[in-house]
């Protein structure tokens, strides 16, 4: 009683809890990210195409008596793709593999000074096109299933519009189309950016992007989550889960100057994808060319890609087989939250199964 009266806020207990959590964090420092076996099957420049080892018997996923088409995952340039295979119980890749799909993943690697002039045409028509060609030739197919995530979804939309014959089904996850829709703080902040100047300074370090993303909600993202960790009395496993996420959040690769400058100007500032004025390598990117089935998954509480930015896709593409699916979570929650784990893999698998 005397101690409680002297320390009503429990500083003594809190101190002990801080020490305990710090110890757990130290033990979790070497935690691994990325859980499924994969091997590099193709590379160009810094880009590497991985193929995951199957987890289900061959032919488990079928379409009209034939094996299901391979799925090529095109992730964003601004983050690492291992978030899709973070750990066994938080892995979209694993769920797809367990359902019998053949899964390929593009890792764009780390742009260095040799890549500062690498632009969006290079990424689309040289790197992504190379990955697609490799998968198609390896499986002797005319078309594959493309799964684009976030900025990778934008690239996937552009690629599908430019090469519609190579994509049988398109799945997009947290993919903006209208960059001025909804409460898009990033879009507001970069509206007056001099992209020529930014492009001239060289590649943008990952740390700059990290800080930019955190500054959208600084107190929540840079303080509150640690206090909650402290308050939750997390056990070792929970701390390891936390550290895996932290590793990913602070693991942004550097961005090629030219590509980033184009992305900011064409998409964030000029909203060209929505307006139909985007050209890649001199060729118009017309989203009406996208006539294949499209499944568009987005988050209702996304602070980076507002739901309205993603939902706008429906009115821009030419497909008559469009399915939008709003998940009640945030941007990162789309990859690791319970809601996402329970809904997203199942929806993708069943949607693909229905389309064959």
């Amino acid at each position: 009683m005397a101690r409680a009266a002297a320390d009503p806020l429990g500083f003594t207990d809190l101190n002990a809890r801080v020490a305990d959590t710090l110890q757990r964090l130290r033990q979790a420092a070497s935690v691994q990210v990325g859980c499924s076996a994969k091997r590099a099957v193709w590379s160009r420049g810094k880009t590497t195409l991985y193929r995951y080892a199957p987890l289900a018997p061959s032919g488990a996923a079928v379409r009209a008596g034939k094996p299901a088409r391979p799925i090529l995952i095109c992730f964003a340039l601004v983050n690492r793709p291992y978030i899709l295979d973070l750990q066994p119980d938080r892995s979209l890749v694993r769920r797809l593999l367990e359902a019998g799909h053949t899964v390929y993943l593009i890792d764009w690697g780390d742009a260095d000074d040799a890549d500062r002039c690498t632009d969006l045409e290079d990424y689309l028509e040289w790197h992504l096109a190379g990955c697609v060609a490799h998968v198609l030739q390896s499986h002797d197919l005319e078309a594959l299933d493309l799964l684009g995530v976030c900025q990778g979804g934008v690239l996937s939309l552009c690629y599908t519009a430019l090469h519609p014959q190579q994509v049988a089904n398109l799945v997009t996850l947290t993919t903006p189309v209208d960059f001025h829709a909804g409460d898009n703080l990033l879009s507001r902040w970069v509206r007056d950016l001099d992209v020529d100047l930014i492009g001239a300074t060289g590649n943008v370090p990952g740390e700059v992007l990290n800080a930019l993303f955190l500054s959208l909600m600084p107190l929540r993202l840079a303080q509150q989550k640690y206090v909650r960790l402290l308050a939750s009395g997390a056990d070792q496993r929970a701390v390891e889960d936390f550290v895996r996420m932290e590793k990913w959040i602070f693991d942004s690769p550097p961005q090629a100057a030219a590509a980033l400058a184009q992305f900011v100007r064409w998409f964030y500032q000029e909203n060209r994808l929505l307006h139909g004025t985007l050209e890649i390598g001199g060729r118009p990117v017309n989203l009406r060319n996208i006539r294949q089935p499209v499944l568009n998954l987005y988050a209702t509480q996304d602070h980076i890609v507002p739901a309205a930015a993603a939902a706008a896709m429906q009115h821009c593409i030419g497909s008559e087989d469009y399915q939008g699916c709003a998940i009640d979570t945030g941007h990162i929650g789309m990859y690791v939250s319970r809601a996402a784990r329970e809904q997203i893999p199942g929806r993708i698998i069943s949607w693909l199964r229905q389309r064959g």
Partner: protein
Amino acid sequence: MSSGFNPETAFAGAAERFFDMMKSFSAQPGAAAGAVPDAAALAGSLAGQFEQWLRATQSAGPWFSPATGGAGNPAGIAAAFNPGAFTQGSFNPGGGSWPFGPLPLGMGAVTPAEGQRSFELLSQLAQLQAQLAGHWHEIATSAATQFAARLGGLAKGPPTLDGAMKAYELWVDCAESAYGAAVRKDDFARLQSQLANVSAALLVEQRKHAETLARAFGLPTRNEVDALYGQVKELRRELAALAQGRHREPVRKEPERTRVKPRGAKGVSAGRKKPGRGARRR
């Protein structure tokens, strides 16, 4: 991985700030006597800490100085502009190297006119930082007003750990609400762009000086390297156009055996040439 990541340091920093906040609770006049805390005084104290934190972590500076930001270093676009101001786990305004200004070296020493441009930009940057500080004050004040108005029931009774946690969550709500409202205003958005533009202009100025030195030593300049890249790209386009009608080499089917390879490992390369537009044409 970004160089500054260290969850342990990040956690320790956040815990330290949380303890500071908890001290604000116990430092209230009513707390010692087990009476109701003074909401206005508590809000004022929290607002002061918040403004200090915003100033420390989001002070604007040059964009691309050596980056050391990380989990322990609270965020901010402006912090991104001055990541050199941080060391792991603590803010250290003097810790970052200041990369701008004329290079004073040898034959490439800058002309007075070039130096003048850098100083003009530095002056602009200082003005913009002052504007930013005004925003942080406005945000902290607004957060305090909201917090004092909403604390209500939470302030009833003597302070407890549970009550402090609830008050903390409320404080975060109020602070984020105030921050969110301010940073969505047009003038703030313009300011962020201006900070980035001026920082980038400073870096470009410095690069000009470095290019002068490079030329003096017979080294290729950035512009010359970029021009070479342009030529390579053009050649690649021509090659792709030539390859489009050509018979494609069959790709060796991949064996099902798989193994994990580390990031960046090169695998079997199936055709290194650019597939060209509409690569899969038959």
